[in-house]
């Protein structure tokens, strides 16, 4: 029954989507609102059908209907309910189904939001989204069909990969990532729509594209942070980033989307970088498809790469179509996009964005090169090579510290022209902080150039960005007599774009400092202890109290009671464990972490005597790790503030109201503000 409903819903949705594409294109060509509305109805109905199919799968999982092939593959009666539900994305077929659900969900949402727009570009955009959906539906009725009937019906299944059922973050990371990936296909659809309809030159599409990109970017950022956190909490090696191809796959579109979110401002204000922005939207989408290909085709071995057959060739065809079609479109329409503005002063906000874009592009290219190099080497020279952390660190660290520096300079630069004297006054405090931090870090014994630069530039950028909040709030406090806690939120409310951006910068810098500190000052110790014995690592005393074993749902856990002492006082009890799942004989490490603002104490149980007489633990003390997660949260919060629509009555802060705005159509307060304040 589930098999019948789930599969036929997908098949009908496939047919309907194809018809929908034809209707939408015909409606746009003939200028027929009736055809257009019929096309939109096809989008909604297809979404409904895919939803039915997805819900059918969830019901099949929850009710343990092992006659459904996917349930037989990942289901198990001993898996807890939460992990049973989220095993929807624990293997290939289910993840593609969920993916298709999101593609159609966002398409329906986009139709809902943009259906009344004038012109025909959105009709083509909706057709493009349907086309992407069609690709996923073809996968689902073909090589990735999760609804095969299993005869005879097994009584139980193996359950999902134990690594994927050991931590609740698995409920969060994949959906966030899919939302980010799928979300980035919407701006691409807008770009295609604008080009095909010939409306690309009026720049209207970039407003919608920008909002959708910010939304997708928030999910992608959150997904990357959640993935790092999962890796930190589950894998037991005390790290969070390894330049694994699948990590790079999520990082590359993030980089280009970040570049787009900045360069789009240059286009909105100055009419520059129009072709560049079009390219960024296309490249970002291509990189998400490439990421999907890398993680879903079996081209790599990884926790994300599921065993499967022919699906890689379908993705390859999809990439080929997307690449050729979008390259041809961009090449065909680029000549229509003349640059409207020019660069007036090499020292200006435009230049900062330009340099930032350049750095982000270089970084994307580097990561792409490192990720694909093993393939190139094998294709050209027939040798197997692997490109690891050292390459990526060496190549990207210079770019990262330059970006950090730019994060400090950028906000201090006004649009168009910069008054040199004012700039130096604005950068005085940040520069002083930068020098102080650099000296302090060197004095503390750090000799690694990049660590010193990261801390110094991080402090510099943090100060500049916080200074923006401070000068803005002070202006309100003086001008309106507000208190600081009234002034700050009102300042942010007065200009979401600008202060949301600064907030995101602040979070990013905090995360960068956390990454620099935790990798530069990590202390590690592995030792075998008897209960009652203790070890001192980087000033923290870690004591083994007990070794225990316990039967839990679907698994057996062997763990250690560990106390963390600081200054003779117990500050934390930790329970690092190894979990033995019924479906697996390899123990799954379950490290325990005591986090504080200054440092994390990370304890992993490596081995134990079965009689509980001793245990081998690995202790890592890593400073400032928590700031990576907090910083990541602030990044998303800041982007969300920037995403939130501006209410008209807050459009302008009073401090700026009496400066004459020189930029037409300015939705944002420009740094001209400082000229009034200083």
């Amino acid at each position: 029954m589930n098999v019948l409903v789930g599969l036929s819903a997908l098949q009908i949705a496939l047919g309907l989507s194809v018809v929908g594409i034809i209707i939408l294109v015909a409606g746009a060509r003939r200028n027929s609102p009736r055809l257009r509305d019929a096309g939109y109805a096809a989008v909604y109905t297809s979404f409904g059908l895919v939803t039915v199919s997805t819900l059918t799968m969830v019901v099949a999982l929850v009710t343990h209907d092992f006659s459904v092939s996917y349930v037989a593959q990942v289901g198990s009666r001993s898996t807890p309910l939460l992990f049973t539900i989220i095993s929807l994305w624990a293997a290939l077929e289910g993840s593609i189904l969920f993916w298709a659900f999101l593609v159609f969900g966002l398409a329906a949402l986009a139709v809902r939001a943009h259906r009344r727009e004038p012109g025909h570009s959105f009709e083509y955009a909706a057709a493009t989204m349907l086309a992407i959906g069609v690709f996923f539906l073809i996968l689902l009725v073909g090589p990735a069909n999760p609804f095969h009937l299993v005869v005879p019906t097994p009584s139980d299944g193996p359950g999902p990969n134990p690594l994927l059922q050991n931590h609740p973050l698995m409920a969060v990371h994949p959906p966030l990532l899919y939302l980010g990936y799928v979300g980035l296909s919407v701006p691409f659809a807008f770009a295609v729509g604008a080009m095909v309809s010939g409306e690309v030159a009026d720049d209207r599409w970039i407003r919608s594209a920008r909002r959708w990109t910010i939304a997708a970017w928030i999910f992608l950022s959150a997904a990357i942070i959640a993935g790092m956190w999962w890796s930190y909490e589950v894998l037991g090696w005390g790290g969070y980033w390894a330049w694994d191809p699948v990590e790079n796959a999520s990082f590359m579109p993030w980089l280009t989307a970040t570049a787009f979110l900045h360069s789009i401002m240059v286009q909105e204000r100055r009419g520059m970088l129009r072709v560049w922005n079009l390219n960024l939207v296309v490249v970002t989408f291509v990189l998400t498809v490439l990421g999907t290909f890398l993680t879903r085709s079996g081209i790599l071995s990884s926790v994300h790469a599921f065993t499967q057959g022919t699906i890689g060739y379908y993705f390859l065809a999809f990439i080929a179509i997307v690449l050729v079609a979008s390259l041809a479109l961009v090449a065909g329409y680029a000549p229509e996009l003349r640059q409207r503005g020019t660069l007036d002063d090499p020292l200006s906000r435009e230049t900062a964005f330009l340099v930032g874009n350049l750095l982000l592009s270089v970084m994307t290219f580097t990561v792409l090169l490192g990720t694909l190099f093993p393939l190139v080497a094998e294709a050209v020279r027939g040798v197997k090579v692997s490109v690891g952390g050292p390459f990526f660190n060496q190549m990207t660290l210079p770019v990262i510290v330059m970006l950090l520096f730019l994060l400090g300079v950028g906000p201090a630069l006004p649009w168009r022209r910069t008054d040199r004297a004012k700039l130096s006054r604005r950068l005085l405090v940040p520069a002083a902080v930068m020098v102080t931090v650099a000296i302090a870090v060197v004095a503390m014994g750090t000799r690694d150039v990049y660590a010193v630069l990261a801390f110094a530039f991080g402090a510099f950028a943090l100060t500049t960005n916080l200074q923006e909040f401070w000068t803005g709030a002070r202006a309100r406090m003086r001008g309106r007599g507000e208190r600081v806690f009234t002034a700050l939120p009102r300042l942010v409310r007065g200009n979401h774009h600008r202060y949301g951006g600064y907030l995101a910068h602040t979070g990013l810098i905090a995360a960068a400092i956390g990454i620099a500190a935790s990798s530069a000052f990590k202390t590690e110790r592995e030792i075998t202890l008897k209960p009652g014995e203790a070890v001192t690592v980087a000033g923290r005393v870690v004591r083994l109290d007990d070794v225990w074993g316990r039967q839990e749902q679907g698994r057996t856990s062997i763990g250690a009671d560990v106390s963390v002492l600081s200054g003779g006082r117990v500050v934390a009890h930790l329970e690092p464990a190894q979990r033995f799942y019924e479906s697996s004989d390899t123990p799954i490490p379950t490290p325990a972490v005591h986090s504080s603002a200054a440092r994390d104490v990370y304890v992993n149980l490596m081995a134990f005597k079965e009689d509980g007489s001793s245990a081998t633990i690995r202790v890592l003390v890593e400073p400032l790790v928590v700031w990576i997660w907090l910083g990541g949260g602030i990044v998303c919060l800041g982007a969300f503030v920037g995403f939130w629509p501006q209410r008209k009555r807050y459009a302008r802060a009073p401090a700026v109201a009496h400066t004459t705005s020189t930029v037409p159509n300015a939705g944002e307060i420009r740094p001209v503000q400082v000229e009034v304040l200083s």
Partner: protein
Amino acid sequence: MKWKIAVAAAVLAVPAVALLGFGLTRDPGAIPSPLPGRMAPEFALPAFTSGSPTPMHPDSVPHVDTVRLAALRGDVVVLNFYASWCLACRDEHLVLQRVASRYVGTDVHFAGILYNDIVASALDWLKEMGPLPYPSLEDRGSRAAIDYGLYGVPETFIIGRDGRVVLKHVGPVTDSMLVSQIERLRAAAPPASARAGAP
């Protein structure tokens, strides 16, 4: 004009797509090893299951037989190193069962070699996972594993009729890869020496 641009775009896209397509044809589990192309290291290992439908308990029949690689010369041999404690071995178990049962009684021989494991746990594991239609061998002191340069389980070696290792595969095997390799080797003519020795 526009068609020229489209052609240029296609020309740009072709190498990228070709590279990814090439990647698809590669097996990420095929790790360089000096073995392929060389003679497979000989072994004579005691079997603890015969490959009959029910695995025997070690107490009832300690060892079924000894399997010698030399005795299989002239036929295609698939060696699979596995262990009961190995997660990925579970993934490939069904594949091995399925593919090996196709070749029962033919000129293709399968053998499992237990790696760093206790025979009793392996028998329990086989009872749980379902028996394999071919013998499992005990490798005391990991002699064969060392000869074959094993660095983990599962690893699978495919040996041609001439006794040379054709493929070393790291990680779980897939149906298509296994069958295509075997069929390719079966199609190859048996070496002259083997034919001369045949009755």
